[in-house]
């Protein structure tokens, strides 16, 4: 998967986060590698983002997904890219 594809996934995740959480200026300031929770994204918005990602990227989260996968925009994008092979 190319860097461009990874970047596109990151950008789509940011768009989804704006859709479920609002605050495009806030979301725009969240660095890719920073914990979304520590950045101030509430748990309700984080779960809504995970649900939106299922629809946007066409997969379902496993029940035993590792917490570090859900940590940041980077880790979320990495998971999507890995699923695509």
């Amino acid at each position: 998967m190319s860097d461009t594809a990874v970047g596109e996934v990151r950008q789509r995740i940011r768009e989804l986060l704006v859709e479920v959480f609002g605050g495009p200026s806030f979301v725009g300031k969240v660095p890719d590698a920073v914990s979304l929770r520590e950045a101030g994204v509430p748990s309700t918005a984080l779960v809504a983002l995970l649900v939106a990602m299922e629809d946007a990227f066409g997969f379902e989260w496993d029940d035993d997904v590792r917490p570090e996968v859900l940590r940041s925009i980077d880790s979320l994008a990495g998971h999507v890219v890995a699923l695509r092979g």
Partner: protein
Amino acid sequence: MATSAVPAPHGPAEQFAAGRRAAAAALAAAGSAERTVPRARDGRPLFPPGFTGSISHTGRLAAAVVSPGAEAVGVDIESALIPPRVAAFVLREGERRRLLAPAGPYTARDLFAAKEAAFKAMNCIGTLGEFLFWQIGLAQAAGALSATYRGETVPLWIGSQADLSFAVAIRR
């Protein structure tokens, strides 16, 4: 338990300050001479020794609970609507069937807060490793709600108003 309103513009700084005000009030009510609650490197609030506590906030309200001598405390307040898809993601089928209204007494927001509060009270148990709050199971017996994950169980108390749910979990 103590609460403090989050002033405008209701951002992270205002929410943090309101949380510390609520924590100071809860510590005072619990008899602690120390009222400050610094932030650990991982973001967790560091309550004075012997005065175990927890803080939660929405954009409008912060709440803190202190339980002297408890091993761990978790509190969560939620004001956001929980859409059905989000409820289905966080709550197991059996939890939805038995605990959600009209069959059960709780709203999805109540149970979301319950799992978050339980997570805060349980995620310091080293033997549990890292886990996600929705992986905790909820059950009710004889009117008492409890949360369980990998054999560890904590009791839960839920309060609910029209625009707010709050939950408290205390491990002793």
